[in-house]
């Protein structure tokens, strides 16, 4: 009888072992936080910056609320806010100190490719990204104002901005910024400058005291937002 139980015990030991191994193999490996001190600090910094931005926005809204509460002329304040928002969204013409970037064809002596018709979309995107990194406030390519929903695409070998063909060379890009000189120097030594040369193009930028950017002409297509009706 004792012997029999021993055999049973051996079998159950084997079963237990197999079950444990199976459990361990199938359980998800727990993901660990592997960021080092520097990365953690950086993450903390971004979060703090975000907090600051949110606080600023909150202050702005509170101020608007205060104004609305204080003044009799609610419509006036509303109109002001509306104007400010339209300005931010790029629906108004703006002018100010800025930069004029002119993109033109630039051939090597022994160039042997075909005709160059348009700036590739990826180069334009790169340029806009670099301008934004350097602190550009408003950008327009040719007559097309760049807004938050602007699409830069390529169709039939030509580049479209906001759904319109890009004009032929030279292409003018207007930028409004607080410090045009800074952007000018940054752009002339930027990575996009080299990439433009690879595509047989080059751009030159000139700081201007006053540039005027056209307004965004089309309607904004708002797809993922809808007005909230406040319950009264």
């Amino acid at each position, binding site marked *: 009888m004792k*012997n*029999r*139980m*021993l*055999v*049973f*015990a*051996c*079998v*159950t*030991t*084997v*079963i*237990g*072992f*197999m*079950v*444990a*191994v*199976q*459990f*361990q*193999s*199938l359980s998800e490996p727990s993901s660990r936080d592997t960021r080092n001190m520097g990365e953690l600090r950086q993450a903390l910094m971004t979060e703090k910056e975000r907090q600051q931005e949110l606080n600023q926005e909150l202050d702005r809204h509170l101020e608007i609320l205060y104004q609305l509460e204080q003044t009799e002329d609610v419509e006036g304040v509303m109109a002001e806010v509306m104007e400010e928002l339209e300005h931010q969204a790029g629906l108004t013409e703006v002018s100010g100190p800025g930069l004029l970037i002119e993109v033109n064809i630039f051939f090597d002596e022994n160039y042997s490719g075909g005709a160059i018709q348009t700036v590739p979309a990826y180069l334009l995107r790169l340029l806009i990204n670099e301008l934004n990194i350097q602190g550009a406030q408003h950008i327009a390519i040719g007559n097309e104002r760049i807004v938050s929903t602007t699409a830069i695409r390529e169709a039939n070998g030509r580049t479209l901005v906001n759904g319109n063909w890009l004009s032929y060379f030279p292409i003018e890009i207007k930028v409004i910024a607080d410090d045009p000189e800074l952007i000018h120097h940054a752009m002339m030594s930027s990575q996009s400058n080299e990439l433009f040369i690879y595509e047989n193009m080059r751009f030159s930028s000139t700081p201007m005291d006053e540039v005027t950017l056209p307004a965004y002409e089309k309607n904004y297509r708002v797809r993922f937002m809808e007005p909230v009706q406040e319950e009264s």
Partner: protein
Amino acid sequence: MWLPVVGLLLGLLLGFFTDLRISEEYASYLSIAVLAALDTLVGGTRAQLEKTFDENVFITGFFTNIFLAASLAFLGVHLGVDLYLAAVFAFGVRLFHNIAIIRRILLTKWTTKRAK
């Protein structure tokens, strides 16, 4: 009676503490082996209760069942047919069958004990 339970706990502890892991493609083999082992265990318990237990049958059954089940799964993988499902089905049915018989035996034992 407590010896098998101790064995089970010992096995579990051993398995968890050795931190052994097998890759995912072999997980199905192991699961089928566990099923085969469980089937043998339950069958052995049933035989014990029916007083037809034979150690040699039990031990050989344990190993051949595991081996057969794993090789069936292996064959299934190489034939592109989920043959291991056949083993799962067979073992599942037998498990339930044996457990039902064990339950009945225990129930009759209990009722006769109460009748006394």
